[in-house]
């Protein structure tokens, strides 16, 4: 058994990291889709007020933080649903009010204010107690299960709210549910990455996945994989490098994002170089268009005046412009060699 697993507190830390890495990107993808990437940050601010109230009144800070964050989540959605321009300002007031209240109340409490504040703002994963872990595990599993069950509908609402409403979906209820899931994730993750960094774990793995994946389904899976790798890998790295776990996790996630950006930029450049758009024609190929169809790997080419048009995004590509006709399968008849 590696040294890192020999300690109870590290076992608990790794398990907590695994749960957070799983839940945060799953919820976060819908925030990215709805262009609400920063909302988790705001909920974290409000949760801090909850933590402070818990510390001050000797309640469990997790529970009071949860209460504050969930109320904030519902208020956010109701303000957004009203669609007023002043709503934006109202949210800002709530978020800054939350963090200010948190700082002031925690400063008035007896139990070592600065250390307490730090552990919630930036995470203190190695101090996770067994009972904390049980609560986190249960909450994280609820978040994962509910998000999975609602996934198609959350996707539909975020994709086109008006259409979802017209098909009878309970759009406001689904949006509030997503906000509450976000709030619970924020609280579950606050001991791992801290309230100031939690939003990063919800958003950055998704940003990375969006660069690489080809579909929503693939992107969500990739984001969850990245989230787990970063959070578990970050905790392990922090143990060996003696760095704070929260910051290490987020830096790891950003490193992966930058690697993916570089990869996708290079891939696009290569694709552009190898890519020859077919001549523009108003005619759109289709099953009955009269041009012979050639099944080819995972797509269909249309034989057009002796060269092959492959559907690509909104236009047609010349199929494999760099290959000579002889390298193609013999299905094609090349009576017009101009393009090859």
């Amino acid at each position: 058994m590696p040294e890192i697993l020999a300690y109870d507190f590290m076992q608990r830390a790794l398990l907590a990291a695994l749960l957070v890495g799983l839940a945060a990107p799953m919820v976060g993808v819908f925030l990215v889709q709805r262009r609400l990437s920063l909302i988790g940050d705001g909920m974290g601010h409000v949760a801090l007020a909850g933590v402070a109230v818990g510390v001050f009144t000797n309640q469990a800070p997790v529970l009071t933080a949860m209460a504050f964050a969930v109320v904030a989540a519902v208020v956010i959605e109701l303000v957004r649903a009203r669609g007023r321009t002043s709503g934006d300002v109202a949210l800002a007031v709530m978020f800054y009010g939350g963090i200010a209240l948190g700082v002031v109340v925690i400063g008035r409490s007896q139990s070592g204010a600065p250390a307490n504040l730090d552990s919630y703002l930036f995470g203190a994963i190695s101090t996770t107690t067994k009972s904390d872990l049980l609560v986190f595990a249960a909450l994280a599993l609820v978040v994962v299960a509910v998000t999975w069950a609602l996934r198609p509908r959350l996707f539909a609402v975020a994709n086109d709210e008006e259409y979802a409403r017209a098909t009878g979906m309970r759009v406001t209820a689904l949006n509030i549910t997503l906000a509450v899931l976000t709030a619970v994730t924020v609280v579950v993750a606050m001991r791992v990455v801290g309230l100031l960094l939690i939003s990063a774990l919800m958003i950055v793995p998704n940003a990375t996945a969006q660069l690489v994946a080809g579909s929503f389904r693939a992107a969500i899976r990739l984001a969850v994989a990245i989230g787990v790798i970063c959070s578990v890998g970050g905790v392990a790295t922090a143990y060996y490098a003696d760095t704070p776990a929260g910051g290490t996790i987020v830096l790891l996630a950003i490193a992966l994002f930058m690697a993916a950006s570089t990869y996708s930029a290079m891939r696009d450049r290569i694709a552009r170089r190898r890519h020859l758009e077919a001549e523009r024609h108003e005619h759109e190929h289709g099953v009955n268009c009269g041009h012979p169809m050639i099944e080819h790997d995972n797509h269909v080419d249309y034989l057009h005046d002796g060269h092959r048009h492959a559907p690509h995004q909104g236009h047609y590509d010349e199929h494999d412009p760099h290959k000579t006709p002889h390298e193609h399968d013999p299905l094609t008849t090349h009576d017009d060699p101009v393009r090859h």
Partner: protein
Amino acid sequence: MTATLNAPDDGSQAISSQAISSQAIVSLRSASFGYADRAVVSDVTMDIHAGEVVAVLGPNGSGKSTLVKGLLGLNNHLGGQVALFGTPIDRFHDHARLGYVPQRHTLSASVRATVAEVVAIGRLPHQSWLGRANHEDRRIIKESLAVVGLDDRAAVDVSTLSGGQQRRVLIARALAAQPDVLIMDEPTAGIDLASQEILSQVLARLAARGATMLIVTHELRALSRVLTRIIQINQGRVTFDGPPGNHELSQASPGPALDDHDGHHHDGDDDLPLTWPAAGPLDRLPGFHDA
């Protein structure tokens, strides 16, 4: 504007004294719709039956979008009687029977979504909360894409398609719900001529399959082949309701100036309403649907 009932001279007013029709797909009696308490379209009386292909015609801001959005429950029903498939609208819950094709210039590109994933949204009303697309759902999605001629693009990121192709994706999404009537908001607005031609072929194909359609538009050219009826709306009132031939006659005679229903080609955001937002932030007023 007068307070009296508008009386189109084609005889449709004769049905207004009757009760709402139980056979009609859509049945309205002196109905009005709007936002908050402000009626945008009022005193609408009509029955739409299976197999009809109806254009709801009118200048920007006339209330034509408000009328169809009212049928979909997207704004407030402020008066009169409205029945869908014989059920009063406040008790109607079988929303999948109305296939809505919203007016969109582009689909959201905040995250990747393939054409098939967007069309699959249309199947959701037929799936349970824990259910996922099965073999039959996938077959219907594929077939819907084939009808709009996009079956070869199922795996493509939808944001890379042209505006006209995206419009057809939205039609396929509506078809995937297997609706009994298609309700389209400006399907041909803002797309180039070649795409309009393809779109009108798609509409002709749907009409040939016997689809009932209610199409909001401000230009008839792309639809002329398939229409069976025209409803003209001006300033929130129905001013004509009848077959396309009679509509031409009514337009030939001197009457109220109708600014842009033919030949006037719009593109981009030019055709956004000037006076009243047909699709805007006001649509999100709470409390009318999620109770």
